[in-house]
Each structure stands twice: as structure tokens, then as C-alpha cells.
């Protein structure tokens, strides 16, 4: 049932360009954005499509990211299919409206080239921006490749606009590492995508013939009930995500899951990482396996909602799970990803040891040797039966 080869275009695309192509084919009504590195190419390319008459969307070049997300909320309220893109400081400037978008249940697709937050000002990749918005109510999907960015952006519209979900979706790629590197991308034909993504069917939208008010005040008497609705909506995402991905797999043969496992069945030590680090982790697993080490890896794609039960099962038989994460929660018991994993494992009878390695901040390279360093440390910690709550790797100290 997969799409025939002649319906597929293969091109060398950066992650940003792949996302721009997905946005072009997803038949947007409105794109409102403000440029910021390393996301810029997404909007640049999309503006070119608009200037060349290849898309019908209204492109709103706003004066700030706060306005970008605000314009998206407004357009989405009318019932439009809407997208925007940002990163780092731009994402941080959206902060207030991120919460508004999620709590008003606006199915906006927000593509992010994940980048470090200031200061010192830095344009390179880590996950500070994404982790900073983790409690905003956005669904978060982190991608490993340009292909996955293209695929996920298309699926994100169906997920966001699904009537059981109605929440904004962040699609993340690693800044520069994926956003600016050219990879082979298979693109579906326009008509195939058009059929797959369909047209948004809004549940409630602003319409002068049927007036309603959106985003009003709710105080002590109702606010909490709306948060209950929102919480239940995001917890229902995995079911819908699996259905959408199954449809996508029928078309393309590709699927990613909430997380990808690699040689974990008999693994004693499992590497857990997100985004582009997932690829490096696989290489490290292969190299260590050649030396007879029982190691596997998991690449987490869906951070919100966090697939706690599934992930606990996936790592449950290992002796240790080593987390490599590109963000810090300053002063936290551990850092964002490890907090989730430790909580997910708390009820398990036989918990693997959880190691939290913070790596790659501000775009510091995370080569295979960093993973091996963590692996060697983990073996020592297992022998000793204790480990630090977290540590940084790849920093001069």
C-alpha cells in the first residue's frame, strides 16, 4: 500500500528546508513568524514559496516572536491551519503566548530548531529552549533527521487538529546539526500529502454568524476545571499519535514511535538520548557490541506527553540506563530528562541504576567518545553500587 516510487521526490535537504517543504505541502492558511537562527531557513523558504505563488497561505512577517505566536492563536481561533517557527531567545519571547495557545486548545504546529538560551549568547544546539517550554502544554516531538523532520511536520497537523487532542505541537530538530546539514529526504507527491493531511475541521471557531468568546477570564471557580480538560487532552495523545503514525506508515513504510529502541532486548546498559544524539548512540552501541559489551540505545522522540509506562518497560530489564541530555534545570535534583525517567521507574520492582550525563550545552560536540566515557563511568558505578545524581561530560573541569 506504500506510495509508488514515481510519486516520491528525493532531494538533498537541510532539516529546515525539509520542514519548509512539509509546511508547503500541508496546505497552511497562515504562517506568522519572526526570523531567528537556526530556524531562519524554514521561514525564508516558505516565504519564497509564497512569493512564487506556490502556496496560498497568508504569511505574516510580524515584529516579534510574541506577536508571531499571538497571530497564530488568532488565526487558529478562526479555524485556520497555522504554523510558525522559532528557536532559543525567540521561543523564550513567545513564552506567555505558548501557554495561551495550549490552554486555548489551538492546534498550531510550531517547528523549532533547538538552540541554547542566552547567556552568554550562543547560536548552537542544545535543548534549553525546548525544556524551558516543557510545561507550557505543547506536545513535543524531537526529530533525529531531515527525513524525520519532514515526516513529523506532516503528522503534527493531524495530531494537533485531532478532535480528541486540539493542542499545539512543537516539532524540534537540533539547531545546525540537523537544521543546516543536507541529508537525503524522500518527499511525497503534493496530492498524496493533500489526501493525508486533509483540511482542518475546527470544533469551535470564531464566526460572526455564531458568536462565541474565546480566552475569557476564569478565576477560582472554573480555572482548575479547564486545566483538568487540558491535562486529559495531552494524556490522550499517545493513542492518537499511534493511529496517525500507522496511517503514515501505510503510505511511506516509515515509523518512529514515541521512542526508538536499538539492540535493547538483552542490553545490560542502555543509552537514552534525544534528537541527533540518537544516531551517535547507535554507532556507539555497534562499536561496543563488537567488543562484546551488552549495550543498547533508546532515542526518545516524544517528550510531552512523556511515555513513562512504555519507557519504564523498555529499560526495566537493564542494569543501568545512561541518560545523555542537552539541558540543565539549574538547582534541580537532576536535569529534565532524568527527572522524568527516574519518576517513570520509581514504581518498578527492579529499577535500573539511572545515570544523568549533561552534555553538549551551547553546541559543544558530543562525539562517540563522550558516550564511551559515560559508559566506562557507568560500569564503575554499577560495580560500586552507587553513582552521583548527575554529572557533566565534555566540559573542562
Amino acid at each position, binding site marked *: 500500500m506504500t506510495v509508488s516510487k514515481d510519486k516520491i521526490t528525493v532531494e538533498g535537504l537541510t532539516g529546515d528546508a525539509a520542514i519548509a517543504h512539509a509546511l508547503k505541502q500541508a496546505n497552511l492558511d497562515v504562517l506568522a513568524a519572526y526570523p531567528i537562527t537556526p530556524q531562519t531557513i524554514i521561514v525564508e523558504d516558505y516565504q519564497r514559496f509564497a512569493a512564487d505563488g506556490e502556496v496560498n497561505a497568508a504569511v505574516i512577517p510580524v515584529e516579534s516572536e510574541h506577536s508571531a505566536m499571538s497571530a497564530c492563536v488568532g488565526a487558529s481561533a478562526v479555524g485556520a491551519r497555522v504554523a510558525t517557527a522559532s528557536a532559543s531567545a525567540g521561543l523564550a519571547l513567545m513564552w506567555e503566548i505558548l501557554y495561551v495557545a495550549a*490552554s*486555548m*486548545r489551538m492546534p498550531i504546529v510550531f517547528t523549532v530548531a533547538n538552540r541554547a538560551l542566552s547567556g552568554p549568547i550562543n547560536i548552537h544546539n542544545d535543548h534549553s529552549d525546548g525544556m524551558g517550554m516543557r510545561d507550557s502544554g505543547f506536545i513535543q516531538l524531537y526529530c533525529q533527521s531531515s527525513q524525520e523532520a519532514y515526516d513529523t511536520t506532516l503528522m503534527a497537523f493531524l495530531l494537533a487538529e485531532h478532535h480528541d487532542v*486540539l493542542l499545539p505541537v512543537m516539532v524540534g530538530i537540533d539547531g545546525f546539526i540537523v537544521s543546516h546539514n543536507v541529508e537525503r529526504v524522500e518527499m511525497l507527491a503534493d496530492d498524496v500529502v493533500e489526501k493525508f493531511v486533509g483540511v482542518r475541521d475546527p*470544533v*469551535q471557531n470564531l464566526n460572526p454568524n455564531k*458568536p*462565541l*468568546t*474565546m*480566552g*475569557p477570564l*476564569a478565576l477560582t*471557580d*472554573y480555572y482548575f*476545571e*479547564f486545566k*483538568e*480538560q*487540558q491535562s*486529559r487532552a495531552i494524556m490522550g495523545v499517545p493513542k492518537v499519535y499511534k493511529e496517525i503514525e500507522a496511517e503514515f506508515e501505510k503510505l511511506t513504510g516509515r515509523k518512529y514511535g514515541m521512542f526508538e529502541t536499538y539492540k535493547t532486548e538483552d542490553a545490560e546498559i542502555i543509552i537514552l538520548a534525544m534528537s541527533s544524539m540518537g544516531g551517535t548512540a547507535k554507532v556507539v552501541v555497534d562499536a561496543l557490541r563488537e567488543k562484546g559489551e551488552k549495550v543498547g540505545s533508546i532515542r526518545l522522540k516524544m517528550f510531552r506527553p512523556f511515555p513513562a509506562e512504555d519507557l519504564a518497560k523498555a529499560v526495566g530489564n537493564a542494569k543501568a540506563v545512561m541518560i545523555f541530555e542537552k539541558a540543565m534545570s539549574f538547582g534541580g535534583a537532576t536535569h529534565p530528562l532524568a527527572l522524568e525517567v527516574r519518576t517513570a521507574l520509581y514504581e518498578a520492582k527492579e529499577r535500573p541504576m539511572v545515570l544523568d550525563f549533561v552534555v553538549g550545552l551551547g553546541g559543544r560536540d558530543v562525539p562517540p567518545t563522550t558516550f564511551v566515557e559515560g559508559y566506562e563511568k557507568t560500569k564503575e558505578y554499577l560495580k560500586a553500587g552507587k553513582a552521583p545524581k548527575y554529572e557533566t561530560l565534555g566540559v573542562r573541569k
Partner: protein
Amino acid sequence: MSEKFNEIPMAGNIIEPGNSEKYKTGGWRAEKPIHNPEACLWVKNGTCGRCWIFCPDMSVILTEKDGKHAYAFNYDYCKGCGICANECPTDSIHMEKE
């Protein structure tokens, strides 16, 4: 106000236009205005009306029927701000604790 999370519209949307009428803001009141008709110029001869003019919630109800002037407060929406009592030139309105 007893509805559960699944008995109210999504995201706080107000799907019935103009329903703010149903929100009885009089519930916010800590003090209520009490009217004494004896010296009230409206009741006496249909003049003054400063309380009616200044009330921010249109909660002073002045009516006239067959040459008789009646005075009332709409306590459903009176928030008890006390502006009427402050403006009254004849001290015909005083505030009492709820």
C-alpha cells in the same frame, strides 16, 4: 458553578453570547447601600438622580408612575462600591455590612 470539568465548554470558551447577564456580580459585595426615602430628592420631586448617574453598574433603579417616584437598588449587580452614598447630597443612602 457545580459543573465538572467535562460539563463545561472547552478551554473556557463562552458559547452562548451575552451570558454575562447571568453572572450576578452582586456576590462580590461586602457592604450594601440602604436607601431612606424621607429626604431623597428623587422621591420628593423627581430631581437630583446623582446616584443613578454615578452608579458604575446601573444598579440604581429610578422609576416614575402616575406622578409617583419610586426608588430601588438592583442587588444582583450592585457591587457595594458606595459611590451612590458618597454622591448623595441629602445623605439619603448609607452603607451597611452584608
